Each structure stands twice: as structure tokens, then as C-alpha cells.
């Protein structure tokens, strides 16, 4: 019998809208999947120990009692078969909001949904919010309570500060002892080479890396026409006043080169790269995850 995470709607509601959105998204998404995603899941047995009063009776190994006539408690190595780390970029640039929701909000939803889904599947989920440094970090756990903590952290977070992910990711790669799944939600507005090296670091530690590149459609299309002052979301006081029409070609060239380099080099580093536009439904990210999860077995 595997451990399950219980989502009590009343308790979820205490954590606000994000939890509801996550649940709605995940369950809506799962309804459409015919084959049960829970099938074949198991927990890993670790050891027996002597029963002490206070332990749950359901954990007593009755077979062992029959053989030895003593109460043993069955203990498990982990309560899940997967450790997932959600790395959510909360730097200032993620706060860009065009006609759709902001990139960070989008990343919040994706992260919440993934956490929900992962916990639902009894996978352990950890969360790290960062800009240039780690703001919050929750080690992976598979309990329902943990979801609430994750959601709570996500809800409370505000995008701010500069982006400098590569050193941070290197740090994380060193920190994560056991191999697992690293899910990165970021706009990756940094130097491609350094980012790739950090990702390669994860891969070197035998982590699987799922890179969700979150971008706003305005950033990809640059549809502005009137004279505009672009104010840097990360560095206050840094502003550029330009005629967007004159700049568009140059901008798009720069931007597409960046995206292409990131995608190609990520592919080469065996990093699963996925572009997420904020005007696309969040479910797409869940689909990507499940496909990935299934292929992992």
C-alpha cells in the first residue's frame, strides 16, 4: 500500500486562490487522460523495526508477527519514488506583464500545478525561489502538508531583484545529493553559455532537467509602435527610450538568436527544453511533465 497525499478542499482553500487554481488545472487535466497515471507505482522497502506504542497499527507487519510473534513495524526508504525540485525564477524580469498575466504568475501556476500533480502521484516535491540568491527553499517531501507550504511560498513571493541564475544553479547542483528531476521555470535572461554550463552541472550530477522557458508574447513579437521608454524591471533607474519600430528588427534578431542558442545548446546538454508562452494554457506544461514521467517509468 502506497502512501497517498490527501487534498482536503477545505484546507486547500485556506491557502487561497493558487491552490484552487492548481487543483482545478490538474484534475481537469487528469480527467482527460484515459490511462490511470497511478498504475505501477510502488514504494521502496527499507527495514523492519520493533513496534513501540504510539506507532500506527496499520504499519505493523502482520506476516512477520505470524513468524516471530513479535510486532515489527515496516519502514520505507522514501515515501515516494521521485524527487522533484522546482526551481522558480523570481527575479524582476519575471514580473513583466503584457496583455496576459505576468511571467511570474504564469510560473506560479505552473509550479503550483506541477507540485499538486507530483504530490498527487506521491512524488516528493521541493521548491526553490530565487533571484540572484536563494530566497526560499523547501526540501522535497511527499506529504500533503508540504503542498500547502509550497503553495504558500509561491503565493507570497513577488518578483524582484536581478537575474543571475548560473552561479545559483551551480550551487544547487552541488547541494542536491540524490539524483532527481530538476524543473526550472525561468525566462533565462542571462548569458546563454553560463546557463548551459550550469545545466550541464545538473546533468553531470545525473539529474534530469526539465527547462520551462517562460516568455511573454510581447517579448517574442515586440509589437510596440509608439515611442516607448523601457524601464528595467531589475535595475531601477535603467531606462531606454527608443522608437520600437526602428528597433524591432534588431531586437527580434537578438532575441531569436538567444532563444535558438538556448534551445540548441540545452538539447545538446540533454536538457529537456520547453518554451512556455504566457498566453498558452498552463496544462501544456503538465502534459509535458507527465509524458516525461511516463517515459521514465
Amino acid at each position, binding site marked *: 500500500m502506497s502512501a497517498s497525499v490527501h487534498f482536503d478542499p477545505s484546507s486547500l482553500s485556506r491557502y487561497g486562490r493558487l491552490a484552487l487554481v492548481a487543483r482545478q488545472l490538474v484534475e481537469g487535466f487528469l480527467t482527460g487522460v484515459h490511462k490511470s497515471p497511478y498504475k505501477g507505482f510502488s514504494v521502496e522497502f527499507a527495514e523492519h523495526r520493533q513496534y513501540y506504542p504510539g506507532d500506527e497499527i496499520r504499519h505493523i507487519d502482520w506476516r512477520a508477527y505470524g513468524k516471530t510473534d513479535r510486532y515489527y513495524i515496516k519502514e520505507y526508504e522514501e515515501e515516494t519514488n521521485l524527487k522533484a525540485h522546482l526551481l522558480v525564477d523570481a527575479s524582476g524580469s519575471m514580473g513583466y*506583464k503584457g496583455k496576459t498575466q505576468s511571467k511570474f504568475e504564469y510560473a506560479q501556476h505552473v509550479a503550483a500545478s506541477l507540485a499538486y500533480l507530483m504530490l498527487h502521484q506521491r512524488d516528493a516535491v521541493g521548491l526553490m525561489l530565487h533571484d540572484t540568491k536563494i530566497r526560499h527553499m523547501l526540501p522535497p517531501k511527499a506529504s500533503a502538508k508540504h503542498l500547502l507550504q509550497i503553495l504558500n511560498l509561491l503565493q507570497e513571493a513577488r518578483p524582484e531583484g536581478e537575474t543571475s541564475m548560473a552561479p545559483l544553479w551551480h550551487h544547487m547542483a552541488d547541494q542536491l545529493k540524490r539524483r532527481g528531476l530538476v524543473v526550472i521555470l525561468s525566462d533565462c535572461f542571462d548569458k546563454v553559455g553560463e546557463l548551459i554550463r550550469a545545466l550541464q552541472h545538473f546533468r553531470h550530477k545525473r539529474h534530469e532537467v526539465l527547462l520551462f522557458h517562460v516568455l511573454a508574447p510581447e517579448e517574442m513579437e515586440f509589437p510596440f509602435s509608439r515611442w516607448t*521608454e*523601457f524601464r528595467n524591471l*531589475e535595475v531601477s533607474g535603467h531606462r531606454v527610450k527608443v522608437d520600437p519600430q*526602428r*528597433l524591432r528588427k*534588431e531586437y527580434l534578431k537578438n*532575441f531569436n538568436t538567444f532563444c535558438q542558442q538556448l534551445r540548441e545548446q540545452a538539447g545538446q546538454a540533454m536538457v529537456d527544453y520547453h518554451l512556455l508562452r504566457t498566453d498558452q494554457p498552463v496544462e501544456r506544461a503538465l502534459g509535458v511533465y507527465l509524458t516525461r514521467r511516463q517515459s521514465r517509468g
Partner: protein
Amino acid sequence: MVPISFLSLAMLAGLAVLVIPPLIHLLNRRRYEVIEWGAMQFLEMSEVTRRRMHLEELLLMLLRIGLLAVLVLALAGPYLDSSSRLLQGGRVNRDVVLVFDGSASMSYTGTGKSAQDQAKEWAIDFVQKMAPGDGVAILHARQQAIPVLGQLTTDRERVIDQIRRMPGPSGSASWPAALEQARAILQESQRSEREIILISDNQRVGWADDRATLAWKDFVALKKEQAGTTPRAWVVNLDPQRPANPPNWSLAALSASRAVVAVEQEVTFRTAMQLHGQTHYERPHRLRLEVNGQFIKNIETPLKASLERGQIPLTFKYRFPKQPGSYLVSLILEPDLPPAERGPGYVIKDHLPADNRQDFAVEVVRALPVLLVDGDTTTDPKTRGSFFLRDALSPARDQTPVVQARVIPIQEFNATSLVGSGSEREPSGIDDRPRVLILSNVARLSGEQQRVIDRFLQQGGGVLVTLGERCERDHYNAELHREGKGWLPAKLDEKQGDEKKVKESVRPLPSSFYHPALEMFRRQGVGGLETAWFARWWKLSTPGAGSTSTPVALFHKETLPFLVERAHGEGKVLLCSVPLDNSWRTNVVDVPAYVPLVHEMVYYLASLRVGEHNLPAGQPLRYRLPTSASLAGLTLQSPSGETRPFSIEATDDRSAYAAQIVQQVQGPILVSEGLREAGIWKLSTPEQQTQFYVVQSDSREADLTPMSEAERKQLEKLAPLTFVDHPEELRERLSNSSSQVQLWWWFLLGLIVLLCSEVFMTRWIVKQR
């Protein structure tokens, strides 16, 4: 500097719109959106792109500013002002011929400075403002156009110097001739911009009077025959304030009873005071008589006179001194008091002093040389018919006869007879070459003799032919009359009358004496010429409708001709139908009028050369040289005081007068170029003798009536002229004339080019996005 001017300078204020493109640019930059942006790293442009964008923006803005600038300039009516360049310098060069009015009316001072001075000032100012390299020539329009600067020159200093030194006005001006000469000067010019500027005073005389109108018509007819373009001719009025009919006194041409007189003889002169623009006569201050520049006396002027005909006739006499030579008689009218004697409020009667003087050159001889050719072949002079004529002309007892008569028989008459004694001139400078030839009852003339007389007449000699018994009718008619083609004035029909029938004789008819030589005998009782009778005479006839012969005195009977006159060449022949001696029965030699009659006729014939010394402008100068034909030491002084020698070689410079020596029957004669300037010319000989030449000024110049508008319009239709009322107006007209090159369409072209560039550039920039 590009000499562009604009028709509407006010439109240039529209250049303020040039600030619009920069203003729009700045306003656009002020109105901008603010976006909180994350992907800042992609907004960073390369330096090359930034520079290119700046350059493109700058170019586009300059194009738009240029577009507006060219539009505004095109609307302001730009033109290339070549006339202003004429006045301000720095344009396509042009050639200008300035033609100054040299007529006497230009000395009118009624409006302050004389019109001539105003013309000079204006012209100097005009020349000073011309562009360097502009060519100028100057003509002085008189009876003939005098080239002051006959060729185009770019030396402005020289032009101005010549304008300053231009002589004062006198005589009249022939404008068609001046215009023709100006055109001839400009024909040498290769420049497209050519102007003729006629600087005048708008006087009707010379421009639009009958004579001038005829001359203009001739000019236009000539123009039609000539090819080529005619430069524009502007007529500028330098004295626009002159009243329509200003008060002016003048003297009519001076005439004398004799142009050749013997010493100590009295001559009667006639003239008239002409008053223009005045309603009543007021006695002038004085009328001075001068001879050879010396004051002689004041001529009495009438206290009162009627002004019905606008003129008051004057007559005075003057007796010449003992010294023979050329005398200049001058009459000078001074209507106004001298300036020092004028009281306050004095009204000046005459503002045009140039026409207040008249001159007349008189030749005073010791005795008039006359050659008497007698047809009588007898040797005793006293028995010859010519004795009476010779005695009448040079009485034997008169020590100082007024006529020096020499008698030769017909067989001795040849070409040398007319050269006189052949001696050098007598100290007085008057030669003894016969001025008058008398053929007295000559039977016939040899061919050589006929030719000598013909040449003598052609060259201004005077011949008196008296007919008598000896004259061979057929020879006279066939050889001398030749049906009107010869020099004999009349055909000899037949001898009439009978010496025995005195009662049937004929008598002269005084009432027919209108000839100048006979005028004094017209009145009954003077000399008793009407009492003379002739028992026998030649009946003369002047056949042919085109005959130039005129009977100038008649007999009572059947109006038979007594005297017949005819001009031949420059000379004249008087034919007398009676011998004027006692050969046929007559009392003529006994009547008191006989001697005056012969004298009058001889002096009349001798005065034919009056035109040699009193001549209209443009006529050649003639001077009868002594037998040694040399020009050495001869000089001629013009009215403006310039003295130059004569030269046989044609000279282009103005250092000498071109002259030629023509051999005539009476010896060599110097003929020089036309005397173009009205006034007194003085020819000086090496013997310190002076020969005066009076070039008559046109008395019509005294009439200052201006041209009417209708006359000007008519002239403008007739000739290529444009009248301008004011000197300043001329400058304006010159700058507004066809020399103005409109440039608006060039600007329009520029506008289109700029517009295309702007569209192209904008599209190109859009394409770059």
C-alpha cells in the same frame, strides 16, 4: 553669391515652417509610452546600427526641411536678376550703348541743373553700378551721331572720364542715325544681353516732328531689309519735370546780303528774335554784335512789338574793316539781366541759353577777282564790248576797286585762265583766282573751253553769259544747252528787234525782279533800270517740263526773258539775253543802275560759295589750298576747343582729321570729314590766317514742346523703342524686363526630386524594420 531675387519677399516669412519637422520630432519624443520591461538585454543596439539610425533620421529630417524650404522659396517667385546684376555686379555680362542727346535743348536749366548735367550724373552712376566686364560704348547724338567711345570697352574709368569730358549740347539730334550707329556697335557684341539707352529730354523736335517721323520711317524700312535681332532700345527722359511750353528766347538763323564782300564794304544782316512760351514781348537786356569774338556794339531792339508770329525781325548793317580775310559775325541775345543786377523776385525769361547765339562767316576780299572773256577778237581793249563791263566793275580811275576784273580774248581762254596769276597767295591770304567768269558776246567755245567751264561750274563757280551779235545760235543750242542737259540755262531761239526801230525796243520789267541780285531794283526809281531800253535782243526759251532753268527777270514785251538762271553742279549760270554793252543799240550803259546791276550780279555769283563756310552739320569741310598742295601746318579747331591737324592717311584714332586733296580746275582743295558738331570751327594756316566755318544749329531746337503721349505711342509702334519717364524707372524696367529669368520651375523640379527622395527614404526605413 547667387543673384536670386524673389517677387514676393513677404512669402519668405513662410520659411518659419522649417521648424516644423524638428518640432514634430521633439514632440514625438516627448509623447511616449512607459513599459516596465524585462528583456532589456535585447534592446541594446550595436554602435553601427545606432549610428546608421541617427544618420537616417538626420537625413530624413533634412530632406523634410529642404522640402518645405524649396516649397516656400518656389511660392515666393524666385528669379535670376540679371538686370540687378547689371547694376550690382556678378552676373552674365552685357553690352550697353549709351546715347546722349547732344541737341541744344539739353542745356535747358529751368528745372535746376541742365538736362545734360543730369544725364551725365545719371550715366556715371549707372556705369559705376555695372558689373565688372560689362561693355559700354558712348555716342553723342547730334545732327550726326558722334562716337565718344565708338567701340565697346570694359574700362569703366575711361568711360566715366569720357562722359565727364563730353562737350556741351548744341544743334539738333538725329535719333534714327544714332540708333542705327548704336546697333552697328552692338553687332560686334557676342553677348546675349545687349541694351541701347537713349538719354534724352523728351523734346518733340528731333523725335516726333515731321522731319524726324520721315527719318524714322526710313530707319524702319532699312531695318526690314537687314537681318538679325535688334537690341532693346530704351529712351529715358532725364528732365521729366520740364513744363510743357517753357519760356524761351532764341535767334533765328543769321543771313547776310553778301557772303563775299570787298574790304570796307557794308553788309546787311537779317535775323529775328523768337519768343516761345510767352504772351507778350518785353525788351531783352541786350543784343550784342561781335566780330571775330570782339564786341562791336549792341544792336537796337524794338521797345514794343507784336508777338503774332512769335518772332520779331531784326536788321542791322556792318561795315567790314580794311583787312581782308575770314570774318565771323556773331549776334548774341541776352534776354535776362546779368545775375548780379537781378533784383529779388526776378523772373528769368530764358532757361535755354544755347539758342541765343547766331553766327555767320563772311569772306572779306581786297577785290573780287572776275575774269572777263570777250568774244571780240580786236586787239584794242577800248573798242571791245567788254570794255563797258570791265569799266563798270573796275573803273580805271578807281585805285582800290572792289572788283578785280581781268579781260582776255576768247582765244586765250583755257584752264590756266581760271588759276589766276598762278602766283602764291597774297599776304592777306586771299587768292586772285577768278570767282566769277563772264562770257561777253562770245561766238563759240572750243571743246576744251566748254569742259573748263563745266568743271568750274561743278566746283561752285559762277558764270555770267551775255549774248550779242556774235553768238552762234546753233553752236550754243547744240553744244552748250543740249536740250537742257548742258549748262546753258536757255535755248537761243532767234535775234529779235531792230536797231533802227527804237520805239519797238524792249524794257526790263521791275516787278519781275525777285532775284536776290535784282531785288534792290524792284522799286520804281531806284537806278532807273526800268528806263533802259534794248532795240535788239535774243529771244530765249526754256523748253522741257523738267527744266531747272528759271527766268529771273523779264522784259515788258510778251514777258520775254531778260535773265535766265540755272544751277549746274554747285555753281550757277546767269544768262542775259542782251550783251550789256553798246554793241546793239541800247541806253543801258548810261542808266545809273548799270554799274550796281553788274556788281550785284557778280557778287551774287561770287557768293555761291557761302555754303562752304556756313553749312549744315555733317557737310564736309572744304578749303581751297594754294597751288602748293600741302597740309603742313593746317589745323582745325572744333567748337569744343579741340585742335587737331589734318592727315591724308585714314586714322582710327582721333589724333587728326582725315582729309583728302582733290584737284580742281582752280587748284587743289582740301576736303575733310563731316563737321558733325554745330558751332564755330576754325581752320588755321601756317601764315596765322584763320578761316571760320559756321555749322548752323537747327533753330527748331528752340521749341521745347515735349512729345505727347500719343506721339510716343506712335513711335513705339514704329520703331523698337521703349519710353521711360524717369531714370529710376529705367532701372526698374531693366530688372523687370525679359532679362529676368524665372526660376520657380527649377524650384518645382527640386521639390519633386526632394519629395521622391523623402518617399523613397521613408519606405526604405520602413522596409528596414
